[in-house]
């Protein structure tokens, strides 16, 4: 539904977006990650047709955003970064306005209003003016605006920013549910959100895509990914280390005493064989009749990956 090819945006000498390309299909939820100022919002502004690109091409549902902006914009629902809305309007008035701008009228408008009101839990504030609302409600009002025409493409710039944990949970559920039938791009710097609702994630840094993959693929880039932790009772750490080092798949092995227990950590010799490593270690423990109460394979942590690849001194791929 969304294709972005070689997108470049310069502001004077500063290059905010530097040759970004990606694609989002229907049924995909793309998480857009990156440090502040990486170019996330700028990219989204170009994709939604607010800003012209310096060069490159964006199409939505086959329509070029710069050549055929109105057809492209019709397919898109957009939640801008600060979730703006008109403070002097009531929530109902604002949503009715958004519906009219989207070409809805009469019964279609009424049912759209009702749908988004329920979806975003706005029933109790419908007739309040926007400037009397709390931040969470304002945010959801603007989100409701982006859903009013049940768009095929959703672009959400930090949709959970400023919400409390319950509201965050609701919005994530909503994104995941809608992601089954729509193409969704959302930006965030909350990494757990990516794991909670993305089918794919892109990390951008200084205007470039530094990595693109499923959350699991991203996590596998963590140095700790694939290493196995074992907790054993009543064995000498040196023995544990010696026995575990004999496992063929094992790389570096460390073992530490913690009271009567021993924590052992085994890194894989080669990446991507975590499952085998864990079962090999379980075999050793059984053979030696160790009493162990914990054995698990590290999946890797997104925040480690994020820090590793967006660090200023890291080598960019």
């Amino acid at each position: 539904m969304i294709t972005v090819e070689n997108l470049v945006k310069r502001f004077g000498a500063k290059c905010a977006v530097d040759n970004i390309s990606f694609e989002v299909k229907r049924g995909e939820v793309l998480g857009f990650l990156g440090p502040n100022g990486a170019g996330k919002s700028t990219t989204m502004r170009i994709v939604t047709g607010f800003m012209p690109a310096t060069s490159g091409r964006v199409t939505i549902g086959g329509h070029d955003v710069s050549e055929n902006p109105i057809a492209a914009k019709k397919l898109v629902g957009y939640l801008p970064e600060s979730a703006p809305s008109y403070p002097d309007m009531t929530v109902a008035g604002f949503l009715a306005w958004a519906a009219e701008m989207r070409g809805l009228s009469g019964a279609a408008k009424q049912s759209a209003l009702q749908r988004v009101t329920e979806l975003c839990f706005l029933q109790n504030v419908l007739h309040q003016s926007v400037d009397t609302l709390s931040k969470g409600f304002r945010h959801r009002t603007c989100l409701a605006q982006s859903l009013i025409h049940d768009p095929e493409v959703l672009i959400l710039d930090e949709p959970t920013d400023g919400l409390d944990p319950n509201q965050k949970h609701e919005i994530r559920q909503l994104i995941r549910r809608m992601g089954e039938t729509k193409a969704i791009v959302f930006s965030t710097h909350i990494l757990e959100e990516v794991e909670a609702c993305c089918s794919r994630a892109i990390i951008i840094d200084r205007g470039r895509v530094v990595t693109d993959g499923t959350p699991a693929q991203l996590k596998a880039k963590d140095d700790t990914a694939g290493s196995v932790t074992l907790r054993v009772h009543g064995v000498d750490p040196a023995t544990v280390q010696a026995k575990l080092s004999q496992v063929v798949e094992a790389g570096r092995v460390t073992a530490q005493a913690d009271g009567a227990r021993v924590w052992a950590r085994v890194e894989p010799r080669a990446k991507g064989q975590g499952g085998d490593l864990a079962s090999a270690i379980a075999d050793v423990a059984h053979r030696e009749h160790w009493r162990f109460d914990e054995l698990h394979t590290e999946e890797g942590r997104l925040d480690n990956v994020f820090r590793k690849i967006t660090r200023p001194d890291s080598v960019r791929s």
Partner: protein
Amino acid sequence: MSEGLRNMWAIARRELGGYFNSPVAYVFIVIFLLLNGFFTFSLGYYFERGQASLAEPFFSWHPWLYLFLVPAVGMRLWAEERRSGTLELLLTMPIAPWQAIVGKFLASWLFLGIALVLTFPIVITTSFLGDPDNGAVVSGYLGSFLLAGAYLGVTELMSAITRNQIIAFIISVVVCFFLILCGWEPVTQFLVNHLPDSVVNLVKGLSTWYHFLAFQRGVIDLRDLLYFGSVIGFSLFATSVVLRGVRGA
């Protein structure tokens, strides 16, 4: 209704609602009517003149009245959208930017028109006291409405230039002031002594004051209509150029 008209109407209605949902509309209308009365009856010597004419005591004050009141109505048009970030919302809707520009303009112009229509008691009074030239009254109102539109166009443009309403207001007042001055008699008298006639006429031709004069006298001249039309058209076009720059930056 075509899609373009429908979009403009949705934008214009929101804008009009913005005026009437807040005290702005009522404060404006009350002050506009009070000032009109004050100028007409006190400074305009309406009764002392003993003439059944609205040109001198009523319409001739409008360029000065609008000088401050029209920028007050129009200053928020784009500045507020830019400041609050709703510009991003508005311009990612499936509409052409000119529809938003014209829709906003029409809403504010309609509002100014409503305020102007509410001065009707002065027409009734004059008809009661004497026998005014109805044609001149109609052309005076038309001229006044066009004058308000020209100032409003300038204000909309200035409002797009900045995200600060106060700055938009001040620059609009200054620009509109120049548009009055370059055709105001004391200034043209001064220019005649220093510049060749052709230049003076050119400068005079740029003035809202000069083009509004004929309407007050009851003359609807195509050139004056063209003048006000082109001031409005140029302002709105320039607004679209400015907005394109705002989006790119």
